[in-house]
């Protein structure tokens, strides 16, 4: 296994406001972790898709995997090295091997650096190529992401959203990563540009043998890039669909609700959706299954016991008492 995450947990404690704090009151509210006990493993060259809605913990998961954020608990093993135990210096060197492409290509590029300087900086910081070959490497990177060589001396503001995302991808590739994490890389782009970037990512994965984690709120966008999909809700991975298993075979009630609500390019698709109350409870419960407030199948154990992920058929994991039956471990 190239990348293994075990039991990653991250809680963002919001302190009580000053008006509510005081003697006899806890300094922090009881909050649900943004990410709870999330585990995945990837072979070299494998792709994993992560799908979930806003607040599901998918970006926190990405940030913890890349150690942009220190998880509160759990380990991230890259080629057997536990990144969470590394000190600042060794971590900085290892972090090169996991690169992230973010959603917003406008805020994630330095507007005062030319495209060439942005890429050169990465190559210099990590001592990746001899100085006399840097220019050639920059040119190759631009070519790889489909940008003209003339882009070198231009600034991010000269480019459209789709081209900026290509620059971000080139910057990630400049670090010569083994793992590429793409966090909603096409959500800020127009539909026709989205397809270009999705194709580019699929090509790069194939050409460079990259191990890729692709994150999106759209099940079908995710499946286009990654044959294996982890579905997140309320900070937990509630279902993992292995490659070869069609989306329609999803068993977790949340995944089924996502599928049922999906918009389609067919007249009248809207009539076929429904049956789930999306907003019964705006805030998630702090114990038990995070989905129970909206789940049509919820029963007593869902209130007390957070359902563990169970393998129902080879590699198809579901965390749901209703699907797997309640067990006490």
């Amino acid at each position, binding site marked *: 296994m190239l990348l293994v995450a075990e039991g990653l947990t991250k809680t963002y404690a919001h302190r009580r406001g000053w008006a509510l704090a005081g003697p006899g009151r806890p300094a922090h509210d009881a909050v649900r972790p943004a990410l709870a006990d999330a585990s995945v493993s990837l072979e070299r060259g494998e792709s994993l898709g992560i799908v979930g*809605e*806003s607040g599901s913990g998918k970006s926190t998961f990405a940030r913890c995997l890349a150690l942009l954020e220190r998880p509160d608990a759990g380990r991230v093993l890259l080629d057997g090295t536990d990144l969470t135990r590394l000190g600042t210096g060794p971590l900085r060197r290892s972090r090169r091997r996991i690169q992230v492409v973010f959603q917003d290509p406008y805020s994630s590029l330095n507007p005062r650096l030319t495209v060439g300087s942005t890429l050169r900086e990465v190559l210099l910081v990590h001592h990746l190529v001899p100085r006399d070959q840097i220019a050639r490497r920059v040119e190759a990177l631009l070519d790889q992401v489909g940008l003209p060589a003339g882009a070198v001396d231009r600034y991010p503001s000269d480019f*459209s959203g*789709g*081209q900026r995302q290509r620059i971000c991808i080139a910057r990630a590739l400049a670090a010569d990563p083994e793992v590429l994490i793409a966090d909603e890389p096409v959500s800020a782009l*127009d*539909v*026709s*540009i*989205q*397809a*270009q970037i*999705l*194709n580019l990512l*699929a090509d790069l994965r194939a050409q460079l043998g990259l191990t890729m984690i692709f994150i999106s*709120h*759209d099940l*079908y*966008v995710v*499946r*286009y890039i990654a*044959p294996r999909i982890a579905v997140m809700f309320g900070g937990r991975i509630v279902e993992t669909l292995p*490659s070869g298993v*069609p*989306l329609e075979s999803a068993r977790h009630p949340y995944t089924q*609700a*996502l599928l*049922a*609500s*999906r*918009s*389609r*390019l*067919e*007249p*009248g*698709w*809207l009539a076929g*959706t*429904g049956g*789930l109350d*999306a*907003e019964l409870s*705006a805030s998630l419960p702090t114990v038990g299954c995070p989905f129970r407030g909206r789940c049509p199948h919820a029963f007593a154990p869902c209130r007390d016991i957070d359902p563990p992920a169970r393998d129902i058929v080879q590699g198809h994991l579901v965390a749901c008492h209703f699907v797997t039956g309640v067990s006490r471990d």
Partner: protein
Amino acid sequence: MRPRSALGVEALTVEFQGSGHAVVRGVSFEIAAGEAFGLVGESGSGKSLTCRAILRLLPRGAVAGGRVTYGAYSLLELGDAEMQTLRGSTIAMIFQDPMTALNPVLRVGDAIAQVVQSHDGLGARAARMRAMAMMERVGIRDAARRAGAYPHEFSGGMRQRIHIAMALAARPTLLLADEPTTALDVIVQAEILRLLDDLRRQEGMSLLLVSHDFRVVAGLCDRVGVMYAGELVEIGPTRTVLRRPEHPYTIGLMNSLPEAVVDKRLRAIPGAPPDPGRLPPGCAFAPRCELAVDACRAAPIGLSETAPGHWSRCIRTDHLDELRRSLAASNSART
């Protein structure tokens, strides 16, 4: 029954003063009373400006030309006071981000009641009752209690419901919706769209829905117009346009959506939309179109009718079959 009217948009143009070029270029369509019409396009296509021009809510410096009629009213010529009366009461609009449409320091019940009071002249007590009834209409349970809450106390989907309740409080006959679900999660999006659809049918309202997402329009609208570089490039019944699109850009948009197919390459449209200040002399889509020939690049292309009520701004419609085939392939793979 209140009188229902048709919306007529004729040769609408929108230009930013001093720019020297139009960003909406001669857009014409009609929405019959009770009909749902969708405008699809990418950012910069002019779809939102078209929508805003109808209610004269254009950003500063933008000037509309052409003609917009709603029943007996000619909207672009109406006095400001008359327009203000019409806005909200007869024609209402909902926006993508409900937070910008709701007053953050007003309890939501009071916000809705204000609309009712100013348009119907009801007393405070009656207006509050109507506000609560409206909140229940849009699916907010326990309205009596939640009417006292502020916008920030609601989730995104609930805020959009309140925004819809406000828009519908004065019982408009035409609703304009600009990307009403774009900021929402998948499940909530479906719920809000269903709500809009139900309310529209019950009230017999006309709807103009603007979206970048063809699927959203497909679910809600009887007819659809596809915009590109400030122009309508295709317009027709939704069912027909989806089954047999007559413009290469429409086919490209449909092909760009990943469906349940693994390891099948998306047929992305190459390049990017043109800069409105530097449009090509002929068809604006020609530089990205694999079917373009010299005639496409020579002079602007007009709309021609390919089937009753179905119009396309393309002179190569006889050659679209190959492009449509890729569409048919992904369609059959989907089912």
